[in-house]
């Protein structure tokens, strides 16, 4: 493509100078009416429960004894924030997030390059890279659990430096490694799709020009391609990091939170659904929500993420 891109058409000229015409008012009303059901549904399941969680979190409220509900102010938050279990879960969640995002960024970028450049067998290559994306997380979690199992798994047999009866789920470190591998296997395709979208935006002309000027492949990558897809990389990190922070399915299936592998999502789930501690669970829900907001805010500010890029309102 040449650089003579056609600018987007100007907005329809129905708007008159002196305020909105009747027609545009009617259009405004119709538009709002049409999006209303969608907005109501989205808020019903997100904003409304979140407000309710804030309200429930200031009570000592367990479903096993619903009549004993009493107002306790911020005691739930104090209990949570002073409990080592909370900090341990948060720490392990951050660990999952950092490890998986860092590794996936590298592997995902390689996969994106392969998907972008491959000429022969394009369909096959892309499909095989995207297979993990299509498999249900619970199923992939089970598959990896069986793979790492010391009874019938193949991992111990394949790795020469590990004894055949090594129990991966018997201690924190190997269990975390196993969960991370499962998580990386499952979500790298998503990462590479995000990066592929950025790669497709880098102009071939620039790469060609750098090539003519004698830049090596490595220089072209670092000086031309990566700086030009910076926005897409940042969006990929943002989305994957927030997703990794919510890690739940893999832990549930692989260790069920044993050996200190439980994430903050898992702790929240345990409190509310398994132990019926709705007050405490709601406080944890609010803390989880706030920490996700905080992480989003930090990533957006630190890396100056361009959210218009993420929204892609074409």
């Amino acid at each position, binding site marked *: 493509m040449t650089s003579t891109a056609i600018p987007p058409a100007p*907005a*329809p000229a129905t708007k008159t100078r002196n305020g909105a015409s009747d027609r545009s008012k009617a*259009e*405004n*009303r*119709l*538009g*709002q009416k*049409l*999006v209303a*059901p*969608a*907005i109501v*549904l*989205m808020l*019903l*399941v*997100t904003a*409304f*429960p979140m407000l*309710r969680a804030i309200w*429930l979190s200031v009570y000592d409220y367990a479903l096993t004894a619903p009549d004993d509900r009493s107002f306790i102010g911020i005691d739930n938050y104090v209990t949570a924030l002073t409990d080592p279990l909370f900090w341990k879960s948060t720490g392990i969640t951050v660990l999952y997030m950092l490890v998986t995002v860092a590794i996936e960024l590298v592997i995902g970028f390689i996969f994106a390059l392969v998907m*972008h450049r491959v000429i022969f067998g394009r*369909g096959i290559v*892309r499909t095989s890279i*995207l297979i993990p994306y*299509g*498999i*249900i*997380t*619970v*199923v992939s979690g089970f*598959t990896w659990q*069986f793979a790492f199992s010391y009874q*019938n798994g193949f991992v111990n047999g394949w790795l020469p430096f590990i004894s055949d009866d090594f129990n991966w789920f018997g201690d924190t470190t190997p269990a975390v490694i196993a969960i991370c591998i499962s998580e990386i296997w499952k*979500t790298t395709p*998503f990462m590479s799709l995000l990066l592929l*979208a950025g790669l497709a935006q880098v102009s071939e002309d620039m790469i060609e020009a750098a090539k003519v000027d004698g830049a090596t492949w490595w220089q072209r990558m670092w000086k031309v391609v990566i700086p030009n897809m910076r926005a897409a990389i940042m969006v990929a990190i943002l*989305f*994957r990091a*927030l*997703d990794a922070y*919510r890690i*739940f*399915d893999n832990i*549930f299936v692989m260790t069920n939170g044993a050996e200190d592998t439980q994430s903050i*999502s*898992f702790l*929240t*789930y345990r*409190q*509310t*659904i398994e132990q019926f501690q*709705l007050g405490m669970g709601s406080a944890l*829900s609010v803390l*989880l929500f706030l920490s*996700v907001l905080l992480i989003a805010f930090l990533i957006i500010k630190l890396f100056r993420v361009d959210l218009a890029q*993420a*929204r*892609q309102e074409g």
Partner: protein
Amino acid sequence: MWDNDQFRRAILNSIGISLIATLLSVIVATLAAYAIARLEFKGKRLVLSLSLAIAMFPVVSLVGPLFDMWRTFGIYDTWPGLIIPYMSFTLPLAIWTLSAFFREIPWEMEQAAQVDGATSWQAFRRVIVPLAAPGVFTAAILTFFFAWNDFVFGISLTSTEAARPIPASLAFFVGSDPFNRPASLLAAAAVIATIPIIVIVLIFPAQDRRRPHLRRSEGIGVPPTWLPSR
């Protein structure tokens, strides 16, 4: 596996819930997408931002309050109890996909058909519907994919076989001996749970050829930021 009552129910639940959620979600999303693609109104950007925010929402922080709310409303452990959250979480994706398609439709053709003597209904049925169908189909596939794959809502908003979908059922299945899980049965169930996804993947390339203008994410047809992350 089919003889196992628990799995049979779970598969029927999954199919029913996912299909109904897909149908309703696509209907609601079509209305919103039409407005976003064709009308000028206040709050358009708000809709898009809200949609994107939902993609990043920590789902687990919702299950506690939803668990409590659904019990109050009496829809805990029922199909609607899962259909409603699935709809909300698939709406952003469906709205984006559909509005991208609707922008590409040459709407003048509807008037052209009417000038040529077609009734409004004929113009809509013969001109607009065929043009919009691939978009609706894509949105439906992605919605179904999300609903089928969901786990968090599936385990926390159900308690019995009445509504428990297949991923949740897989995770809770222990068999007769809790210390020795029936690996082969689980594997069979896992394969069955994957079949719908494989069918979808097989349909996808055929869809892709029909809409070359939406090649942005190359092969998926939707910018990946709007896709479910797993």
